[in-house]
């Protein structure tokens, strides 16, 4: 028995070439930058097709030697068992070799090849089924045979559609990948992971790391150079300013970017205290704008932080110090009393607001009034109080009629 080795009869198991030689690497190299190429060096990568059908149809055609008239059967031997052929016996002829019909079978299952299709490996022939079982690669992800394109990566084989970024599930077969801590990641995810590790940001537009100052815009971070000034069109740097179109609202999707020069020209308010532009909340008072934290009491220098302030001669004061320095607030309107002041019952009123607390009728310095809990009550209203209340108030010696105070300046 002799074994005949026929190399061209069946497809070979793909040999993995060096990465630079793979078709993908070459495609990348031809259109991409140097960066791109070095990037692919991270990992063995290839996509040599492994087709189920024999590459060379012709070579696999099995012909039955039924009438080889001018050849003596005596000289013919079966390629498998080395025996001769009977006179009328069918002889299998494939690519110049001859077999007994019963010898031209799968090395594994000993059955004839369906439609004459077989695969050869290491000198043996296998039916399609057994070839796959024995030699075809299995996908690392889904565990089934890979017929067709095989992705060799991360020391395993994959269906093209099964080889994906472990973070975002992007298909990596055509884009390439980066091995990061035992994981195959896409460009973007790798950049993100790396940036986080370095305490840096990843640009929301190009997805690569931002080495210098990032530009914040509408809640994301970017390389500043992706943007141009809304006004003058100059390429922006990290000094660019985001202008809130609707101050106070959380929605920032109408915000625009301006270079510092245009921004300053736009009349962005300047703080009356520190002379710097105010990006955040603006307090407008005393005819100027202020940073919230720079709008302070002229006496104690504490910021008002939205609390009431009182103005006098171009300065602002907290309530305590305004009163300490200048006097009175009207109990009714809570405004600083500009003109005449009615003081009574430990309180002050402006001329408009000194009135009976029950009927709201204005009172003047001649009006007699009573007090209840230090609120002024005109005589008429007091007399309409429930009698028992009047009795109790009288008993408490609180119901002494008083003359209204004289207005004083």
């Amino acid at each position, binding site marked *: 028995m002799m074994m005949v080795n026929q190399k061209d009869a069946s497809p070979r198991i793909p040999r993995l070439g060096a990465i630079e030689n793979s078709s993908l690497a070459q495609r990348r190299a031809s259109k991409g930058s140097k960066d791109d190429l070095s990037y692919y060096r991270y990992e063995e990568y290839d996509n040599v097709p492994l087709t189920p059908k024999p590459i060379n149809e012709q070579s696999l055609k099995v012909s039955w030697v039924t009438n080889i008239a001018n050849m003596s059967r005596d000289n013919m031997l079966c390629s498998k068992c080395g025996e001769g052929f009977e006179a009328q016996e069918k002889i299998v002829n494939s690519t110049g070799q001859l077999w007994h019909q019963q010898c031209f079978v799968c090395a594994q299952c000993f059955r004839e090849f369906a439609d004459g299709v077989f695969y050869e490996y290491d000198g043996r022939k296998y039916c399609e089924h057994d070839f796959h079982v024995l030699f075809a690669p299995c996908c690392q992800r889904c565990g089934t045979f890979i017929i067709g394109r095989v992705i060799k990566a991360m020391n395993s084989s994959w269906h093209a559609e099964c080889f994906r970024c472990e973070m975002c599930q992007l298909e990596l077969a055509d884009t390439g990948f980066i091995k990061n801590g035992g994981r195959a990641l896409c460009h973007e995810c790798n950049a993100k992971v790396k940036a986080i590790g370095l305490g840096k940001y990843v640009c929301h537009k190009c997805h690569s790391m931002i080495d210098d100052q990032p530009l914040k815009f509408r809640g994301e971070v970017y390389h500043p150079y992706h943007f141009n000034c809304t006004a003058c069109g100059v390429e922006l740097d990290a000094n660019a300013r985001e202008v809130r179109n609707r101050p106070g609202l959380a929605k920032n999707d109408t915000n625009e970017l301006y270079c510092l020069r245009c921004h300053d020209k736009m009349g962005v308010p300047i703080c009356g205290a520190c002379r710097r532009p105010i990006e955040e909340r603006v307090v407008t008072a005393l005819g100027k704008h202020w940073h919230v934290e720079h709008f302070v009491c002229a006496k104690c220098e504490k910021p008002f932080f939205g609390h009431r302030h009182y103005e006098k001669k171009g300065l602002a004061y907290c*309530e305590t110090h305004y*009163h300490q320095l200048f006097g009175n607030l009207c*109990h*009714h309107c*809570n405004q600083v009393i500009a003109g005449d002041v009615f003081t009574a*019952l*430990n*309180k002050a009123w402006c001329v408009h607001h000194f009135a009976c*607390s*029950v*009927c*709201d*009728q204005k009172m003047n310095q001649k009006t007699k009034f009573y007090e*209840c*809990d*230090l*609120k002024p009550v005109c005589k008429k*209203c007091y007399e*309409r*109080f*429930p009698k*028992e*209340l009047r009795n*109790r108030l009288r008993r*408490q010696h609180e119901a002494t009629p008083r003359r209204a105070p004289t207005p004083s300046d």
Partner: protein
Amino acid sequence: METAPSSVSCLPHQTKMSKAKKVLEEAREIQNPELDLFDKGVATFEEMPGLLNMTNITRLTLSLNRLKSVPPGLANLTNLEIINLANNQIEDLPLSLSSMPKLRILNLSINRLYTLPRGFGAFPVLEILDLTYNNLKEDSLPGNFFMMETLRALYLGDNDFEKLPPEIKNLKNLEILGLRENDLIELPKEIGELSRLRELHVQGNRLTIIPPELGNLDMSSNKAAFRFEGNEWVQPIADQLQLGINHLQDYLRSETYRILYNRYLTNKPPVPPPCVDKAKKVSRIR
């Protein structure tokens, strides 16, 4: 009280209108934003037709009438800054009032309120709330009552409070707190955190002792009025009160008092009985 003029019968029918209607008509004519319906003898809002459409008004005076309730529609008068309902017979209020965007002053004194609606404390800009002479106590306050941070004055005199909730401290802007003639048996120490407080009325309660924290308040400035009379004060406090409010303040701040106060709390002396007979309050009439 009111007597109908005898000449009324010879007037054309349509001119026979109530005093309230007349006021309303006039106010509409001259677009007066301050509507004065004081002592007009009205018992219901129906007697004031068109009032709830006068959205321009900023002040509404309805004191000294016989109103028993307030319609929710009053809150449609969103420009109102002042509502005066003093001396009526109001037993309940609509929650809608609490949403009035400009209401600064609300006078509900001398009425018949036993409760306040849930959510009452939602007033956005209320500064003065007068609930004097009603039938309120700590249980009748809604959960958000002390959320009214804009309050400058809170009058709760002549009600039935035995305790004041410690949440009082949330009323950071409070300058005036009226608690005269309730049934208070103690004051919360949190009153001492009301840094702007300059008037405190606690006369005629059942108080025996004052939390030392109240010594933080400025009781002796010329704008301050702290009224403590008519309680069952322990002798040292009564003595200091005799000497004057600044003596009391110094005493409350002293170490001596702190010791006395703590000893007093551990001894848990009996609570004085109600000392004010308020059974005759007209607010109790149902």
